[in-house]
């Protein structure tokens, strides 16, 4: 398990990370979410001792700086473009492998694993963002680590690459590894992550499973379509259901509406129903609700 305790980091008077604590369980992928400027990347760097701040992070029972040959224990992707542009992909990995006494044969293995075998002897200065991301991922996997910390690993990947990454991370987690992934791709995170850590303005907003998070920050909405929508709305209101809203197409939206109750009410009043369904709240809706007051950078209204 990765145990993060009381991380703090300030830049002058700006508190980037404030008393941040959470756990990352083995065997599942944990998503690390937050609006722009929430402190996600700073927190990841603090966990690895790259930035100077307060708090502790232990991998198993050891802080990062106490781990000998850390690439064999913790793999990290922090920046997709962190390579010398004229050093070949293979040599980039070989120099990192040397720091952890990892066999050179492993370099070719991970290049093959991330789909860069054909580009092994190319200079990464000419790589696309997606190829750079794959090279960074190869570096993270070099030591076959038990813990993976990935900052926006899907950036620059095409849809096929994103799908490949999802399968890879699911596979790695299924082997019992701890996988912490920060991402802005909420739809992708909904498919990938089992657990979530959500932060805003450097503070923990929520931590737990995706289902619990969505349940906590959204409300179940029943969708009802009827040719007698006005009458049905009045009946629902009278019965205390709701609040009840209406979509432009005339459908009624009943917040926290219970489907059997709505169906029974309609039947009792002889109201025909054309649709009675539940709109499943999305991770995006939950995220926007959870971080509504935490966004640091918001665009102005347009149109």
């Amino acid at each position: 398990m990765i145990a993060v305790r009381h991380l703090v980091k300030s830049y002058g008077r700006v508190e980037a990370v404030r008393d941040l604590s959470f756990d990352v369980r083995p065997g599942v992928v944990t998503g690390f979410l937050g609006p722009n400027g929430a402190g996600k990347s700073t927190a990841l760097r603090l966990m690895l001792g790259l930035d100077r701040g307060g708090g502790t992070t232990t991998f198993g029972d050891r802080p990062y700086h106490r781990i000998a040959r850390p690439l064999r224990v913790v793999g990290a992707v922090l920046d997709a473009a962190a390579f010398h542009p004229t050093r070949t992909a293979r040599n980039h990995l070989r120099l990192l492998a040397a720091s952890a006494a990892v066999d050179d044969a492993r370099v070719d293995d991970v290049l093959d694993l991330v789909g860069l075998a054909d580009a092994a002897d190319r200079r990464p200065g000419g790589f696309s963002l997606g190829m750079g991301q794959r090279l960074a991922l190869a570096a993270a996997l070099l030591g076959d680590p038990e813990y993976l910390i990935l900052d926006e690993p899907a950036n620059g990947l095409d849809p096929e690459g994103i799908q490949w990454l999802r399968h890879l991370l699911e596979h790695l987690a299924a082997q019992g590894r701890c996988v912490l992934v920060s991402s802005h791709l909420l739809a992708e995170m909904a498919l990938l992550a089992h657990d979530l850590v959500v932060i805003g303005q450097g503070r923990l907003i929520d931590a737990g499973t995706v289902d619990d998070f969505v349940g906590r920050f959204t409300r179940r909405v029943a969708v009802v379509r009827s040719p007698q929508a006005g009458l049905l709305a009045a009946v629902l209101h009278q019965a205390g259901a709701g609040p009840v809203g209406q979509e432009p197409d005339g459908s009624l939206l009943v917040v926290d509406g219970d489907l059997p109750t709505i169906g029974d009410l309609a039947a009792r009043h002889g109201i025909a129903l054309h649709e009675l369904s539940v709109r499943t709240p999305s991770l995006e809706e939950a995220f926007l609700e959870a971080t509504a007051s935490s966004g640091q950078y918001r665009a102005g209204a347009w149109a």
Partner: protein
Amino acid sequence: MGVSGAVAVGGAGGAVRDAVRMEVRRLTTVRSTAVLLAIALLLGPLLCLLFALLLPVRSMSGDDTATVLTVGGDVAPLSVVGALLGVLGAVTVSHDYRYGLVRSVLAAVPRRGALMAARLTVLGVLAAGTATLVSVLGAVLCALSGRRPLLDTATLRVMAFQMVVVAGWAWLGAGLGWLLRHAGGVVAVLLVLPLAVEPVLILASQFGPAAFLAPVVQWLPFASARHALGRQLATADGTVGALPAVGAFAAATALVVGLAWLRVRRADA
């Protein structure tokens, strides 16, 4: 892939050994190293030969030999080989920051002191080896051209100090690289100090208003590097001998590296 067990090996010594392996690969897998070393190993011996051929007599004195085999290091304000290795030190460090490699490298070797020690060790060995090779190739070229160098004990000691001075240049470049994080800035400092600042101070110290500088200017870092390549270990006339001069240059280098260590230890990657 299977889940690996955490591998706990070595302490600080193990970390330095691992980091040395990484640094060797880092230096040998990038073009700038090869280019700078090639320039040093081509230009250095050719300049040795040129200096030798400019001598009016065919038999070289000990002073001539020291000047020729240090590529003018004991008389010129700038050591050609030293400056090239200084640039190598600067580029090696500042490219980490320029290309964002510093985080990958520190993630691989989180003990920052071990990383610095490894990098300075590898740079020092490379610089000393290059300095030796330049002198040896220069001596061979001189001998082949009929100018026989005088390789007495004092000259061999100058060669040894040349290794120290060139290694010092490489460490200065690396130390300034950690402090400034920008290769251009480091190269500017490495050129402007010996070519402009120090000569102006030395010149000024010879005139009335700035005469108080006279006892100080002979200990300036690059002036000391120059004195260190003289054949006199110590002098009785008040001028700086080679031994105290090499000490002064080493102290200046240690100061820069020490400041760099403070910065690297405390700064965010």
